[in-house]
């Protein structure tokens, strides 16, 4: 995972390219505003691709996380995500309570396992 050198220019190159491709859309939006219909099928397809990509990333981060989250058991992560979802919709889409409960489950589950495992 951490085979890329932290001090080298590589992370900066990656970040700068990321910033450029991000700003590109904003600038293009200013240039084209008034000339493009944001409700056209092309934009709907672009939105679908972005949603699928994000959903894929989110699911992967929950199911197959990187870094130290990878050492937590999958049931803990699924329970945290599931409860966040349930609380979010029960509280009329309160983002703070939804995210907060997912956070709480993850913290308590990890703590509980550490305590039980006598670590």
């Amino acid at each position, binding site marked *: 995972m951490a085979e890329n050198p932290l001090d080298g220019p590589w992370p900066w190159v990656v970040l700068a390219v990321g910033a450029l491709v991000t700003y590109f859309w904003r*600038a293009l939006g*200013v240039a084209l505003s008034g000339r493009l219909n944001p409700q056209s099928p092309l934009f709907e397809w672009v939105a*679908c691709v972005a949603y699928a990509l*994000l959903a*894929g*990333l989110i699911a992967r981060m929950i199911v*197959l996380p990187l870094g130290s989250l990878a050492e937590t058991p999958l049931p803990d992560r699924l329970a945290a*995500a599931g409860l966040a979802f349930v609380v979010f919709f029960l509280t009329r889409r309160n983002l703070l309570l939804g995210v907060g409960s997912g*956070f709480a489950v993850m913290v308590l589950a990890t703590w509980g396992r550490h305590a039980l495992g006598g670590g």
Partner: protein
Amino acid sequence: MPGFVIFASFLGFGALVRESGLSLAHGLFSTATGWALPGQIALVELYSVGAPLLAIALAVALTNARLLPMTVAVMPWLRGPGVPRWLYYLAAHWIAVTGWAQAMRVAPLLPAPQRLPYFLGFAMVLWPATLVGTALGFFVAGSLPLPLVLGLVFVNPIYFMLVFAADLRVRPRVYAMLLGAVAGPLFFLVWPDWGLMLTGFVAGTAGFLLGRAQERAPRWRGGGGRG
């Protein structure tokens, strides 16, 4: 209240930055220049699996492509008399979900000359707050006990899972998300570098076609429509 949630989500991003082996300066640079969290998270995640630059650039570009229609939609509401054109290009940098939603809601209620200043003022509160959130998340991830750090890192997927789940009124997008959620981990296992891109194109296009076909034929004939 939305400000607090944004702050918490950038706190999670700061923790993710540290977990991914990047420095505080990298995290702050990403927040200051990218300022669209899903793309930032995609970038950091792909960076830590060692994906090639082209794969990272395309994934970030696709993740953030929604900024184009968002900007096209909001610009008419930000135009004011006598504003130089370059200022719109500068202001566009701060178009991201929260500021955009606020501008779409409030700007139409304001007199034209006040719209751009309102948007910039809103952004100039939010922007520093996200930088502070990133820095605090980074520091906290280095000093808190492990369970809390894991909780913070886990805020990243949870936050966006809920944000996007709340915004699913359009049927093609629902299919795209469901297919993407299934395809994402599978494609990642097969092809860590390009799996995310493939997920976007395959699941996104399938969801788009499926949703549109269904919208055109309201009497759905049932059967396996799982693409």
